[in-house]
């Protein structure tokens, strides 16, 4: 017992106060997409993109992006650049399809939903063919660095105790029914959070017949968190934004 207390002292206080302005220096955060810089006929970015997320000169679909950074390396005109800003979760799927440098970050839920969930949000997590990276970085929010519970957010074992689902993975055909049944077991009003490129649009598995290509069309998604996997700070930023606890553009 004494040893445990001593260890507790040695290990110190590790809980971070707020969401950092910038991720580590080699980590790719929110991209700045400037299609105005694209040269006529150039498609270097699209050639290297593993998930067909870019239409040169037009759009970058952040929902499909795996953050491999190949486009930024291939682009001779600086049209794609990744900042270190963690904030990039949005409320609508269409907000992830960037046509310029602006990204409409997630707004808070409406007043009624905030009254219900603002101080206590219980989520049931469903991995639907997630590779365990998104799952791991959702799990890590429970560790003392992030301490998710201090914001009133918690993961629960039963969908009947939950206010919503947090879905990861491209939704394999073999998990489709289980996901929908879990959703039906959550009492309304309920939220859906899609975490990671797979849950948003299928990730690398977007056109596989064995998957549904993400949650879109299956469930009404209230928050999209891009990444492969999203950094834990990106997930936390998104959750806090819909609860109205983080506002503004964030760094970037």
């Amino acid at each position, binding site marked *: 017992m004494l*040893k*445990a207390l001593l*260890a*507790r002292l*040695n*290990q110190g206080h*590790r809980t971070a106060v707020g969401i950092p302005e910038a991720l*580590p*220096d*080699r*980590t*790719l955060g929110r991209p700045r997409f400037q299609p105005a810089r694209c040269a006529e006929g150039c498609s270097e970015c699209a050639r*290297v*993109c*593993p*998930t067909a997320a870019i239409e040169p000169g037009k759009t970058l679909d952040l929902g499909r992006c*795996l*953050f*491999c*950074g*190949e486009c930024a390396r291939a682009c001779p005109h600086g049209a794609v650049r990744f900042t270190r800003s963690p904030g990039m979760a949005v409320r609508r799927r269409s907000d992830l399809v960037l046509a310029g440098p602006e990204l409409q970050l997630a707004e808070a839920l409406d007043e009624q939903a905030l009254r219900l969930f603002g101080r206590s949000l219980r989520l049931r*997590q*469903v*991995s*639907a*063919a*997630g*590779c*365990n*990276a*998104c*799952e*791991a*970085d*959702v799990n*890590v929010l429970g*560790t*003392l*660095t992030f301490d998710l519970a201090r914001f009133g957010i918690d*993961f629960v*074992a*039963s969908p009947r105790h939950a206010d919503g689902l947090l879905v990861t*993975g*491209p939704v*394999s*055909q*073999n*998990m489709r029914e*289980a996901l929908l049944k*879990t959703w039906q077991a959550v009492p309304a009003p309920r939220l859906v959070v899609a975490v990671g490129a*797979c849950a948003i649009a299928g*990730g*690398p*598995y977007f056109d*596989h017949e*064995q*998957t549904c290509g993400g949650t879109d069309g299956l469930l009404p998604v209230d928050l999209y968190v891009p990444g*492969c*996997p999203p950094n*834990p700070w990106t997930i936390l930023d998104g959750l806090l934004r819909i609860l109205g606890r983080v506002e503004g553009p964030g760094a970037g």
Partner: protein
Amino acid sequence: MRPEILSFPEFSKRLTGRHLAALMGLPGRSGSVLMMAVTTPGAPEPEQEASACPPGGIQLPATVVEGAYPSLTPDHPQAHWFEREFFEQWGVRPEGHPWLKPVRFPQGHPGLTDFFQVQGEEIHEVAVGPVHAGVIEPGHFRFQCRGEEVLHLEISLGYQHRGVEQALPGASPGRAMAYVETLAGDTSVGHALAWCRNLEALAGVRVPPRAEVLRAVALELERLANHCGDLGALAGDVGYLPTASFCGRLRGDLLNLTALACGNRFGRGWIRPGGVAWDLDAVRAEQMRTRLGRVMKDVREALDLLNRSGSVQARFERTGIVTRQVALDLGLVGPAARASGLALDCRRQFPWGPYLQPPFPVCTARVGDVASRAQVRHDEMEVSARFLDGLLSSLPEGPVRTEMKGLASKAFSVSLVEGWRGQICQVAATDTQGNLLACKVVDPSFHNWFGLAVALRGQQISDFPLCNKSFNLSYCGHDL
């Protein structure tokens, strides 16, 4: 390497005493299938363990099958899961297989299947999953119990099937990397490494020494983070919260060391064909070394608490035992095999780069219980941390990537990498044009799921979470 085509009895005989790393099919002439095994030397006898694992010795016995063939499983229990997979993929029936049913249910409805049932008045059945209580991947567990005692556990997977293995050969180079880095997301480095080593072998490209060292850094960081997380989770499963809480944080700190090198906490984008995409400059290497030293100091303190707690050890010891013979028969790999006394480790058996000299130490235990599986992880963390410290303080000079070339035509390559869960086996074959024709992926979990089922026999059902965590297997790595 080339497969050696043998008669069926000769093929079966050649599996005796060997570890079955993979069993795969290749299309043969006029509807037949070439069944090929990748075998590696079996575990050395216990008394030889100090000088265990002579390097090398891969064999590729093969035989032609069509329609049906006599099942290998009665003579070679480690073929059990592989034969079910082979039947599912190629439709060739192993006659006399004791429990022939799908492993991934690619046609859908994975829950709708006959489960092995124990009959009797006091027998009851417990069904768990696919959606579990925690933040964890889906799978179905069917327990046959008498009271609290588990008589039999059947594990039914396939919920995570994404069709990745069959998509690999035709994928663009960038997409193939995304596939292998998400085969099992917690083993992004291990699978990416196995993939790249196959491509390099097929292209005849040699990776620069500095890149090989950085690859070993990535692989060992992945092992450290996962072992640390597992030990914390084991502590959490028996309600010992100090270590659970410390290790949860420390695992994150270890993932952040990988992010320091390549930006991604899981090492995605670091390993690339021809070498690595991110170098470590001297300042960064020193920073990593210092931070690693600090993390390991805290890890030691957290694990010391765990090891000294009588109530924890009482729950760990004699729980979920897999004997040496059972581990050998089932062909277990990784820490689960080493905890049962099998001195098998690809870093020792198939060394490359910095693993070549001196021979890499293999950590084993004897009992094969939860305590042994925890101890092996603990010991391996110490070995990896020491090894990493050495690598980071003497990185060889030079480039970190060489230009890739086209792949040789009609060639064949096997890659064996010791991921943190154990032996990762990937096989790649090319056609006459030098395009990838077929790929085979065997995640260590594929070998070990049956080990977990056997570990539960005679246990209290309430020990399932603890036993499960002590294996901590991948669902998507199995389901592909």
